[in-house]
């Protein structure tokens, strides 16, 4: 498979991203008896976002169960289960509620394979609904991806499409390494026509979602549709923007991203997480290091502000939108100071 190639999803019935995740879990539970699903409210309720709906009924209490309310326990016991040979798929109810498990994630999940020189790999998947835009009160809208990206040993994936949601969750569960699986809350109810099951290829590859020649927008998760909208708007203005969906944040597919930037000569990284020391810092630094002499302008970043996530009624001002992206594109040193429509 070459960089950036992602097999197109076969067309099928319209399915939501949450529904695709539910199918992926069901299919994984069917495919492998070692897969177990647990967390807070995942069994009887089916998860607060219904991603685990119906699994306890179909697979029984030993395969899908509700735990006591303790995130460190969920991650910590998943480690023990993985040591026993299980493939746990656990849910952290919301981004900020994974923080109590941070020590287990950083000091153990990320390090077990290395510590034991491969004797005790941890094939476990940590599902984390993340990001804002859903009107959630405080602590329900964090974009926490950089904490995991900065932790060697973790694979961090962030699908943005329905097909990827299904496929990348299956691939994550099949991975022999621990995967932080970031689910874009904001896109849970987005529908696509996809025939399931679908396989969009191995983890670790980015995808060009829209081809363009003038500049590259690099996005992931909930920022991908926004970047695509921005590209659409720019096209109306005669500007051709390429959109790269990172898909996997760690390891990061430098090849696909750099190939695009070398072609266009300009790049803007777009994400919802805070800018300062956010995911885009790494992307910008790497792209610049590897594409320096192809760049007409510095790589810019359009991100959430460097403030705690604000209350729902003002969150739209926090979230990077089309206007902010086009504004950044306009600052990319165009020959005749040509700017995109804001």
């Amino acid at each position, binding site marked *: 498979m070459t960089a950036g190639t992602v097999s197109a999803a076969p067309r099928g019935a319209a399915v939501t991203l949450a529904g695709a995740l539910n199918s992926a879990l069901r299919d994984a539970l069917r495919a492998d008896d070692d897969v177990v699903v647990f967390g*807070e*409210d995942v069994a*009887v309720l089916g998860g607060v976002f219904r991603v685990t709906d119906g699994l306890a009924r179909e697979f029984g209490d030993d395969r899908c169960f509700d735990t006591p*309310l303790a995130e*460190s326990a969920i991650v910590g016991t998943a480690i023990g289960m993985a040591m026993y040979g299980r493939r746990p798929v656990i849910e952290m109810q919301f981004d900020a509620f994974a923080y*109590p498990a941070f020590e287990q994630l950083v000091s153990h999940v990320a390090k077990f394979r290395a510590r034991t020189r491969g004797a005790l790999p941890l094939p476990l998947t940590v599902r984390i609904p993340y990001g804002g835009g859903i009107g959630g*009160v405080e602590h329900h809208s964090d974009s926490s991806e950089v904490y995991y990206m900065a932790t060697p040993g973790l694979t961090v994936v962030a699908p943005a499409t329905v097909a990827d949601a299904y496929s990348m969750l299956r691939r994550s569960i099949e991975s022999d390494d621990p995967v932080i699986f970031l689910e874009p809350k904001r896109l849970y109810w987005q529908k696509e026509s996809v025939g399931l099951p679908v396989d969009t290829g191995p983890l670790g590859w980015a995808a060009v979602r829209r081809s363009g020649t003038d500049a590259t927008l690099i996005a992931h998760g909930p920022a991908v549709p926004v970047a695509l909208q921005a590209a659409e708007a720019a096209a109306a203005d005669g500007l051709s923007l390429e959109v790269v969906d990172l898909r996997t944040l760690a390891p990061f597919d430098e090849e696909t991203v750099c190939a695009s930037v070398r072609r266009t000569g300009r790049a803007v990284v777009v994400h919802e997480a805070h800018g300062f020391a956010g995911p885009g810092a790494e992307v910008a630094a790497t792209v610049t290091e590897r594409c320096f002499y192809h760049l007409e302008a510095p790589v*810019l970043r359009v991100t959430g502000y460097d403030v705690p996530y604000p209350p729902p009624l003002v969150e739209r001002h*926090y979230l990077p939108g089309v206007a902010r992206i086009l504004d950044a594109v306009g*600052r990319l040193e165009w020959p005749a100071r040509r700017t995109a429509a804001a």
Partner: protein
Amino acid sequence: MTAVLDAPMTAPAPAGLPRETALALYRAMVLGRAFDTTATTFTRQGRLAVYPSSRGQEACQVAPVLALRPTDWVFPTYRESVALLTRGIAPVEVLTLFRGDRHCGYDPRAHRAAPQCTPLATQCLHAAGLADAARTAGDDLVALAFVGDGATSEGDFHEAVNYAAVRRAPVVFLVQNNQYAISVPLAKQTAARTLADKAAGYGAAGVRVDGNDAPAVHRAVAEAAERARAGGGPTLVEAVTYRMEAHTNADDDTRYRPREEIASWARKDPVARLERLLLADGTLDEAAAAAVADEADGLSRTLRRDFETPPTCDPAEMFRHVYRHPPHRLRAQAAALAGELAGAGDGERADGEQTDGEQEEGS
């Protein structure tokens, strides 16, 4: 019915209660019920995004607050709207968080009430720390932390009770055992006989009280607070109650509990129960009850009127209180947003801040 529910109460209902305390409890519970009902109506009307009702838990919400002194501190969770109302916070300020307007609608210092806390059990440590600081200062305040049955499984709950017990910090941990953590029933939360049984493991006092019996809750908390104030350390009060509504309006409780269970608890309604008691023993008469009902109607009316005024949230505020002195980067971002809102968006950064690329033409 779980074993836990069948276990005996260790803090039985008091024989008598001063008349004015009884009436204060009654009044606050009736007001709380009205408030809660109004808030739930707002969610149906789409005027409130989310609201975690405490219907059925009014005794647990009201009695602990009334058992404290104004100088004591209260540490609420998201569930404690009625407790905060009882603390004297304006109804609309109590709902600010859920309205999506601001993270905290009231002045925590003025009311000695911490912001409504969402990360479960974390507030127990804040209470323990504040109480411990007060203790070393010779200040005889008490901190009361509300916490749910589900949240007792969190590490922070454990660390807080342990810390408070070791340092004899004057804290009351009031566990509202409302039988559920969202959909998860108590039996999946603990195998202990009762939640009060946890106290012994910390060397703290532990009592179990009927959480639908306001006078009983009042006495249990008052005793715990006095013990704490006297240097006797923390008490874990388990108040056995029931959450009559779904977890929040966004939740669908038909998925996880039978309607009969709710119906059986409806018969133990703490507001009706106290009313019956006070009417029976003559503390309350129909006229007084009607006056309280009127007051409750007034509260609902005021709250509805207050909700007519649209929220006043200002996007610029998100930059204002991150640090005492906003660093350069935040000032630039605030200026950029201000420019955006003013409709600038002309390709220049709104604050005139320029990237190097703009300062010069090529290298």
